[in-house]
């Protein structure tokens, strides 16, 4: 094999879990240049595997753990990996990102990606030690929380191995189960269920292969500049307060989804805000490996029960969305999701939906009431065990609505089956478009269109088709960041995002890459995701929002109103701006 491209190993490891056979597959230079790493490379590999037409929980399904050209480099926030598969929640493409030592160790195995197919004969730990692959029994680990699994794996295999694990939710194939590493999660879309369905409780990876860089000295110098900038005002919010500080801002702007999107503001917001929690509780900070920002803020639970990471999305989904203003209940719910390996947004969204179904008399579970912290915790446990109403809730709000009937789908808080994050689309209408067209469903990480709404570029209550290109631009930027991979919280330090990204990639790989080329690459990646979805059965009718959001203004902000016609016009303009047919065919 020709020597690898700088920044890459120019191959991936393909493991058939049914037989245990592992194969090293070459990645050609042009293929890498076209798809980079992370999400972009992952989607391309899944297309190659024909994964779109396969049940994601079947043994024939493929899933990919994908590193990136920047992993292992001195660039801040670059220790990240993507988990890419077809989602059991949406039946569409799913690319979830997580951070830290697993990315560094995984890339050091000497591969740019690890593709899993087949199904292990019994519950197993998958060990990848450079290019040596073996399966060991996971019998001792079954039923353990993500944290406990990681702890015991470290005891058994030593600290050189980095692990990615599922919790009880992944073992039971809950549709929104996560894969966890070091307390962080490849969270959305149910990649934990896909891994669980392959009988893999955890991967443990270790390696000795370091990639080289095309221009190491210049790269170190550029990395130093980015690190310096990362200490500046553009990231102060993340460093000092964390993303949870969005809560009071969103509440003031009436875009804080409350009681299953029945309101845009929450009377109890102050009680669970980080401003209040920071006064009453011990707060510590942490960060992913190779990060100079450190956005993670951990808050102490009462009675010496340790501390828990708190982010805006956890806080909104397990607080206001379920009508809960008891900080201890919200923090405990965050921790329980972490332990069980549950996506907090989908868990909170599905439980809030169930609470509204109870309110409307569609489900006979009188204990499941908005505002009841104990009910929230009980619901999370039931989801993980599949007992009682937990069986339905484990399916996510869309499938649950289909089972309940009575037009409950109209208020199920999802797009393409993925529960909507903490941005009410009626008051953030560029984001409404971003959610509607998102390839993995409603997703604030794949479309940063809320940034447009928080600017003078649009009137967030009356966004018109002329603004669709702004949604395209934020989606393209996200696609590139997720493929390079760099943390989204670094985006504020770029002055000219595509040009500076091109410079980074040039120093890493030696390619004469330009801003224009990276714009094309980003578009290719977005189109690849759409291609995957079309092969999986996508139709234009999917690019929409729940009926409630198209037909009812927010009761607490009458200006926040969309209509089916206005959203259709936005979607059509978006498709044309992408160069697709007006309906969205590529």
């Amino acid at each position, binding site marked *: 094999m020709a020597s690898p491209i700088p920044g890459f190993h120019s191959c991936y490891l393909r493991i058939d879990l049914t037989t245990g056979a592992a194969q090293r597959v070459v990645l050609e230079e042009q293929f890498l240049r076209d798809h980079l790493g992370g999400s972009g490379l992952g989607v391309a590999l899944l297309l190659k595997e024909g994964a779109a037409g396969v049940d994601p929980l079947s043994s024939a399904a493929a899933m990919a753990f994908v590193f990136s050209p920047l992993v292992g480099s001195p660039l801040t926030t670059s220790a990240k990996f993507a988990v890419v598969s077809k989602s059991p929640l949406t039946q569409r493409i799913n690319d979830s990102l997580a951070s830290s030592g697993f990315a560094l160790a995984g890339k050091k195995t000497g591969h740019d990606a690890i593709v899993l197919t087949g199904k292990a004969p019994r519950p197993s730990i998958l060990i990848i030690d450079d290019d040596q692959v073996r399966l060991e029994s996971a019998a001792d680990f079954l039923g353990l929380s993500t944290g406990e699994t990681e702890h015991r794996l470290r005891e058994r295999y030593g600290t050189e191995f980095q692990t990615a694990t599922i919790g009880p939710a992944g073992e039971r194939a809950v549709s929104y189960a996560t894969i966890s590493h070091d307390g962080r999660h490849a969270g959305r879309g149910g990649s934990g269920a896909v891994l669980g369905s392959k009988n893999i409780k955890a991967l443990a990876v270790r390696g000795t292969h370091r990639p080289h860089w095309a221009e190491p000295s210049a790269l170190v110098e550029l990395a130093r500049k980015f690190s310096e900038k990362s200490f500046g005002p553009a990231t102060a919010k993340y460093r000092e307060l964390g993303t949870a500080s969005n809560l009071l801002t969103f509440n003031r702007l009436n875009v804080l989804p409350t009681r299953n999107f029945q309101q845009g503001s929450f009377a109890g917001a102050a009680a669970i805000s980080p401003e209040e929690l920071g006064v009453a509780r011990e707060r510590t900070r942490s960060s992913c490996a190779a990060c100079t920002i450190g956005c993670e803020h951990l808050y102490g639970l009462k009675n010496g029960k340790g501390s828990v990471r708190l*982010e805006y999305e956890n806080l909104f989904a397990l607080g206001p969305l379920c009508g809960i203003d008891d900080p201890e209940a919200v923090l405990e719910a965050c921790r329980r999701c972490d332990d069980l390996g549950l996506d907090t947004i989908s868990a909170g969204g599905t439980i809030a939906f169930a609470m509204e179904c109870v309110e409307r008399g569609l489900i006979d579970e009188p204990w499941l009431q908005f505002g009841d912290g104990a009910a929230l915790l009980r619901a999370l446990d039931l989801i993980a065990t599949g007992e009682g109403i937990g069986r339905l809730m484990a399916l996510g709000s869309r499938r649950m609505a289909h089972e309940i009937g009575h037009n409950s789908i109209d208020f199920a808080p999802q797009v393409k089956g993925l529960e909507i994050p903490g941005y009410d689309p009626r008051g953030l209408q560029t984001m409404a478009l971003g959610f509607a067209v998102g390839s993995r469903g409603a997703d604030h990480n794949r479309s940063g269109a809320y940034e447009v709404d928080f600017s003078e570029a649009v009137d967030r209550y009356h966004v018109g088709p002329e603004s669709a290109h702004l949604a395209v631009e934020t989606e393209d930027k996200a696609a590139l960041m997720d493929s390079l991979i760099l943390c989204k919280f670094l985006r504020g330090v770029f002055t000219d995002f595509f040009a500076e990204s091109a410079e980074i990639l040039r120093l890493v790989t030696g390619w004469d890459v330009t801003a224009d080329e990276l714009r094309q690459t980003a578009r290719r990646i977005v189109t690849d995701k759409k291609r995957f979805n079309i092969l999986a059965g996508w139709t234009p009718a999917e690019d929409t929002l729940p009926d409630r959001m198209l037909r009812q203004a927010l009761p607490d902000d009458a200006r926040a109103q969309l209509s089916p016609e206005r959203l259709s016009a936005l979607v059509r303009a978006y498709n044309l701006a992408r160069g697709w047919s007006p309906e969205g065919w590529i």
Partner: protein
Amino acid sequence: MQVVVELFGIARARAGVAQTTAVGQCLGDVLADLAGRFPLLAESCIAGRTLRPGFTANLGGRRFVTAQETALTDGDTVLLLPLDGGG
């Protein structure tokens, strides 16, 4: 002309208050007034009469504004907040 100023996130942390009042005919006047009274806020969020990069203002929860000449009327509410809402 007196306006109410509500502060969020880092702006609130720097000023040490959630809400205050300020005087001025336009956004630039109000920012200058705040900068004079809250030096730590100025250090992070305000450069003279304009917002520093990473921050924005909003009138009454509806319209986002950054131009210092943005006219204000008596009783307006100005929100000062971090620019990006991601999380």
